[in-house]
């Protein structure tokens, strides 16, 4: 049976169909999860996709974290379920306290929309299980607030625990320590600014995201096998 991926949709989310398409291209099945519902529809993995959840009012992700679906996502994550936040989804997961740090305005205040090189730093996460550490992936970024920050103690911990999942080869936005994505202590929650789903077919200009999404589907299927 193929892995079921729940894709969370807030008012203002705009990457949910791209994620669902990419998941289905790779043999998974995708279900959209409306933010006002609590159910996760028996998902084996959850993706919080990009966009502008609740208009990004106040701060990116600040309002979205109070949506009913987020309680279920937090429970799912606490039980070890794979959760990935992409771009705005990463911002939502940091606001929800599921990932450390915060994302603020890019250094230089430029909105960035380009394909960048990202280095996989660890294969010990639900998004990089099939990737080789050191591999460089071409992934699109598309954000104004992707400048990762955290305090010195948190950064030291992220490094010591090998929780920086992907780094930019050339830092585009001022992110601390070139961080493009991090994972939780349990390694089952991952957030990243680049968009793997937009690099999931050669027609899109890059297939760099395929190994990441395949890793997620495999983690989801493994979890489903344990649960059943």
């Amino acid at each position, binding site marked *: 049976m193929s892995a079921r991926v729940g894709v969370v949709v807030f008012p203002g989310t705009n990457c949910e169909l791209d994620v669902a398409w990419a998941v289905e291209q790779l043999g998974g099945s995708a279900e959209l999860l409306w933010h006002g519902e609590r159910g996760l529809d028996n998902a084996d993995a959850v993706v919080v996709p990009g966009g502008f959840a609740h208009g990004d009012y106040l701060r990116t992700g600040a309002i979205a974290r109070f949506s009913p679906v987020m309680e279920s996502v937090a429970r799912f994550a606490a039980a070890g379920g794979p959760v990935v936040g992409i771009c705005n989804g990463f911002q939502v997961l940091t606001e929800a306290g599921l990932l450390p740090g*915060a994302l603020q305005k*890019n*250094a230089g205040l430029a909105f960035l929309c380009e394909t960048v090189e990202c280095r996989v730093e660890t294969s010990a996460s639900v998004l990089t299980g099939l990737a080789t550490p050191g591999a460089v992936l071409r992934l699109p970024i598309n954000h104004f607030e992707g400048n990762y920050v955290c305090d010195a103690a948190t950064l030291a911990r992220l490094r010591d625990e090998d929780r920086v999942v992907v780094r930019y080869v050339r830092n585009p936005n001022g992110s601390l320590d070139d961080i493009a994505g991090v994972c939780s202590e349990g390694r089952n929650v991952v957030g990243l600014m680049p968009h793997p789903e937009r690099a999931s077919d050669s027609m899109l200009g890059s297939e760099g995201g395929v190994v990441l999404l395949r890793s997620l589907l495999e983690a989801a299927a493994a979890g489903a096998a344990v649960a059943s």
Partner: protein
Amino acid sequence: MSVRFEARVEITHLPGILDPQGATVERALPALGYDNVSDVRVGKSIRLVLDADDEAAARDQVEEMCRRLLANPVIEAYEIALSELSAP
């Protein structure tokens, strides 16, 4: 009988956290001839009205709002100023 307060919350970047907007404004001001400016910080101001038993209760509640929603303690500091609103 509760009292009506106006709260003004000023939210700024924590010291040590890069403030990209402040840095940009700081670079722009000398272009207008203001060469004597440093340490520019751009923040947010939130104004709200609330009813509470007294000023301490009002402050506690606004503090809680700051921690839970209005500010992100990972990158932001906040200051609260309260004033009692007189009856119209």
